[in-house]
């Protein structure tokens, strides 16, 4: 089986430029797991509260359904919460990025794996963003914008704030060397 891990050296050997390119995929900052969990829990909380209101209304209108509908709601709630708590570590394990002097690669997902390659001189501008939860954990995310159409923006979440700043500076220095 092939995975996204292999290959940067494979293709570089084709290009007769082997030495400088062998870079391992970097993980995100592990604190992102907590950030994703909190974000997930907030989302779940909102969804569950709204659905709880619905459930209560239905159970008042039709008392016959009362036991079942609450059991159903609890099952869904448990499933959602379990999902919110267990998904972030898996997501973290599958997320990776690497950058050499020419190309930035990100990979993500397990069920639906996606690998994105960004030739660095295609970079138009870089945004560094920090939400409140991310700030609490000292994290930041980078948004890399190209002139593309459907895949114009690549986001790298969960970078330690200083790493994000360094990476941004490096990318900005490297990208956009071209005149147009």
């Amino acid at each position, binding site marked *: 089986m092939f995975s996204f891990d*292999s*290959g940067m050296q494979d293709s570089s050997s084709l290009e007769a430029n082997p030495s400088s390119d062998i870079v391992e995929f970097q993980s995100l900052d592990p604190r992102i797991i907590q950030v994703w969990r909190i974000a997930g829990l907030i989302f779940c909380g909102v969804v569950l509260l709204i659905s709880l209101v619905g459930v209560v209304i239905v159970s008042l209108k039709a008392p016959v359904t009362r036991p079942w509908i609450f059991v159903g709601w609890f099952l869904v709630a448990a499933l959602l919460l379990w999902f919110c708590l267990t998904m972030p570590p898996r997501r973290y394990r599958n997320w990776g990025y690497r950058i050499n002097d020419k190309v930035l690669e990100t990979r993500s997902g397990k069920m639906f794996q996606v690998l*994105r*390659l960004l030739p660095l001189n295609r970079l138009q501008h870089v945004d560094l963003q920090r939400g409140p939860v991310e700030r609490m954990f000292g994290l930041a995310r980078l948004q890399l914008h190209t*002139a593309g159409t459907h895949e114009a923006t690549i986001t790298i979440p969960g970078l330690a704030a200083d790493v994000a700043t360094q990476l941004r500076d490096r990318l900005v220095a490297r990208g956009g060397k071209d005149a147009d």
Partner: protein
Amino acid sequence: MQTEIPPPSAPENRFTTLPVKLLEGRLHPLTLVVGLVSSLRRLIIPAIPILLFGNTFRWGGIGLFIVIIGGTLVSLLLRYLSFSYRIEGQELITREGLIERQERHIPLEKVHEIRIEQNLLHRIFDVVEAVVETAGAEGAEAKLSVLSRAEAERLREAVAARGEAKNLPVDAVETLAKPEREVIRTLGLRDLIWHGLTSNHLLSALAIMGALWAFADDVLPNSIYQQLGKFLKMAAGQMYQQGWRAAVMVALAGLAAVMILGLVVSVVGSVIKFYGFTLSRQGDELFRSYGLITRRASSLPRRRIQVLKIEEGMIRRWFGLVTLRADISGSKKEDEDDNTGRDVLMPVAKASELEHLVSVFFPQLAADPAEWKMVSRLAVQRSMVFAALLLCLAVAVLCFLTRSWLGIGLFLLLPALYWLSVKSYRNFGYALGAEFFRTRSGWLGRESYVVPIEKSQVIVVRQSPFDRWLNLASLQVDTAGQAYTGGSPNISNLPMAEALQVARTLARKASRASANF
């Protein structure tokens, strides 16, 4: 990304220190007349009922019109008096506004396309409207309405010359030998009739019928519906007596009538839209001009083409015809049913000329031979699994509905489906050259893309669970501007290792060339 403009003290850059005015101009005086007539034209339809029927509001209505026309006239006058443009150094500068002044500087090298349009009204007065497009702006960057034809042509030439020779000092441009303009392809009436016949305009025929009905509905008295109802009832009664044959005949005749109407409408539409289509080239600049009633002309530098799409629809492919579409960076549809013909680079051409035409747009392509590679054979297996599942479902539903085992007969379709998927598998492929990436897909109707590798923006490899089961992946090359080509080249069912290798090669190659829209 900003152009690096050297500081004013740099002595070698004469044209940045001493901006030379290449061209300076104002709108044509007929702007006033044309603007007034076109706003009157817009007022005519709402004016008729008020002038004819609205006894109580007649004078109020007329007063309102006078106010509107007066306002239009004043704003036209202000625009005419205040609008000026000039080319200075490397910029096109427009100025407008009397009270609130606005000056817009458009770097010439960012100008992607200059369109010159001449609708019926403009043709009466022999003036044109020039629209300057750049990558960034939503819509037009500058609209010069209206200019004399000679003036628009002068503007276009000046911009084209500066865009191409951006590194030359300004007076050198004037002496630069202008390459001859070479006509590449014109479309005659025959071509256009073919274009109309092969484009599927059944829907627009229906739309026209609907519009006619809506119009008739306004004009005709309501009693006509009662009479029509009576007539239909009578006709149905007669048909019932004559048996089902007559009914089928009538239905077929109706269908044929709609089809013929559709064909006529699309032929007429094609001729009106693309009459006198000419594609020509002058140096790097490509020109298109077409149109029977509204004449349109546009020029775009071919180096700005981001992606070229070769479309062979089901019907066109049958007759050996192709359509070419291209996107330049930042091309945007003006609205969804943009009917100006901007979306096609070449509305119709013979498949045999394809090689020549493509070489006009991408001259380096001929020198970049690349082997066409097929995707994984597993593609057939995969589509057969899907087809079989769908068939099973269809059979189950059919058997359940008819309460019989007849539905199983649907499985007879399997060999045909297999044949189809083998055919389409054989037509799937990609070619990775030194400078170009090409993909092709489809058998009944075929689509091929040509992307200059230096224009690719982001390369994406995706693997769905089903892909992973077969160890396949799909590859997508995203480019700037995909308004007319409808999405970027996307090739699925590649073996995973191959997809990764192609993606990385593309990214590496793209990273060498500097982006240049």
